[in-house]
């Protein structure tokens, strides 16, 4: 197990470096001089040159990258152009809100997806299976930013049951676990949960259906094992793959919630990102994407290790 862990870590390191290179290059593929975003229009040549050397933009790209990554490792992601506050500080307070949303969405999505998928796989090719499959494909196909708007129309505008924006009565204030705050969490997290419900249900359905048609299930029944115990074996066989799908989905929820956060004005990383895009705040853009991508990478690592921990077949391969 330990050797496997080390092997995975060694494999993740180059990926993480690659990710940081892409994030670094984002600012440089942007059309125009990165300076134009920071400098006033009437800046003189000397002022521009001074700023250029202050930001290290006069050095060759690899050197700039080395300086940037050296700072990033120590938690210094530069300063936001729009607010002047450190990017790291902005990103981490936003990521907290995104995590809250992503975890709540997973808590809603995973049990429903697993249950639906299992039932459909168990009753394969029956009317129940078709019904679940139809629901799942609808869930996968829905553009969730539109679904969010529809939910707002129905539950906020027409029925007036739930608030449509922000993460609390004060808009984007401190989160608290009370009724007033939880009301704000319902619509965005349910919206966010729809796609993973569909994906998990589809995967688990195929998985469980395949396992039930395997020889070992027949063998277990043949030797007289009770139905409930056979189910236990099937679940144990399906668990590693189901776990990895859910882990990946959690990562997607965090990195992919930008559209939903925009719809609901949820003060998370996606909302931060769309503000950064709107204001062309490149350091903030770069920092947010780096943090989200690295989170996704570590999520994948955790999933792989957890999968190996519960599935003895993986370590050997």
């Amino acid at each position, binding site marked *: 197990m330990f050797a496997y862990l080390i092997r995975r870590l060694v494999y993740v390191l180059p990926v993480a470096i690659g990710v940081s290179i892409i994030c670094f290059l984002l600012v440089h593929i942007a059309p125009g001089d990165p300076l134009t975003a920071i400098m006033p229009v009437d800046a003189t040549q000397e002022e521009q040159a001074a700023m250029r050397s202050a930001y290290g933009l006069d050095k060759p790209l690899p050197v700039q990258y080395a300086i940037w990554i050296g700072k990033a490792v120590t938690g210094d992601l530069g300063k936001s152009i729009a607010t002047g506050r450190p990017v790291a500080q902005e990103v981490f307070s936003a990521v907290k809100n995104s995590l809250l949303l992503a975890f709540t969405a997973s808590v809603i999505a995973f049990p429903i997806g697993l249950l639906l998928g299992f039932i459909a796989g168990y009753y394969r090719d029956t009317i129940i299976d078709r019904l679940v499959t139809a629901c799942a494909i609808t869930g996968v196909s829905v*553009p969730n930013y539109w679904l969010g708007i529809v939910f707002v129309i129905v539950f906020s505008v027409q029925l007036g049951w739930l608030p449509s924006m922000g993460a609390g009565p004060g808009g984007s204030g401190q989160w608290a676990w009370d009724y007033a705050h939880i009301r704000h969490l319902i619509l965005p997290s349910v919206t966010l949960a729809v796609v993973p419900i569909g994906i998990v249900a589809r995967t688990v359905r195929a998985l469980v259906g395949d396992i039930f048609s395997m020889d070992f299930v027949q063998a277990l029944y043949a030797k007289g094992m009770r139905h409930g115990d056979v189910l236990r074996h099937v679940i144990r066989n399906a668990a590693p793959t189901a776990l990895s799908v859910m882990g990946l989905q959690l990562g997607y929820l965090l990195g992919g919630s930008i559209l939903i956060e925009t719809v609901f004005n949820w003060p998370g990383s996606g909302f931060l990102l769309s503000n950064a895009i709107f204001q062309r705040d490149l350091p903030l853009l770069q920092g947010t994407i780096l943090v989200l991508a690295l989170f996704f990478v570590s999520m994948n690592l955790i999933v792989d290790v957890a999968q190996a921990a519960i599935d003895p077949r993986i370590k050997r391969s």
Partner: protein
Amino acid sequence: MTAIADTAEVSEPVRKAPGYWAGVLKRFSKDPVAVTCTVIVVLLILAAIFAPYLGLNDPYKASMINRLKPIGYPGFPLGTDEQGRDMLARLIYGGRLTLFVGLVPVVLAFFIGSTLGLVAGYVGGWVNTMIMRTVDVFFAFPSVLLAIAISSALGAGIVNSLVSLTIVFIPPIARVAESATASVRSLDYIDAARATGGSALTIIRVHVIGNVLGPIFVYATSLTSVCMILAAGLSFLGIGVRPPEPEWGLMLNTLRTAIYINPWIAALPGMMIFITSLCLNLLSDGLRSAMNVKD
């Protein structure tokens, strides 16, 4: 010489056995859901292409007095948007950009990704390492995030959306192509072809492509719905198509302010994205089972 050629021409023509694709077509046409979805998608594409000849109102013509008229308003079958422009015309014209930006990246990524995957899978060694490790790096980004990151760095615009979405879909296609190629490559008949002196290019062209293209193609069709949702999503965020062009994602965004006045008009563009994406997914599923491709 001529004598031999003549006998070959005269000899009894062998009746061609029904091919693989005939079987696929036969199975596909027996799937009512897949056929219905194909018809809907084809109709949407045709409507988008021939939009100027459908006798619709001008999708750009704004009218201050006709703003946000409800569905069924005389002269405007699907009402009007926040600037008084005809919704029906804008939805049909909107399909042009949404379908274009939603489908073209998958086609481009299909060619580039398959090529990369075929080369990586067939050549192996350090070439494989180079290509596949680069692909891994792009896999480290959730697709939404990668599309948004590249688009926002490049700036708004149709071409930039095409570029960023193509980049997003190359890695997954390359990975599927690589694993399909690698598994075909280890089969005996490839060894036999190599032993008889076939060059790498010939073997790939004659023996490998036919066996791997099917699964890659089915996989690519399953990406079209995601691509369309992402393309419209980019416009929704303001980093895709620029106003005043009609585009479903952009329309959804500009109509958000109207949800208090005429909510169902505001929901219409998203409805179009949803229907198209659902049809594309069902079409892909139908194709998958007709072609008998396993995941």
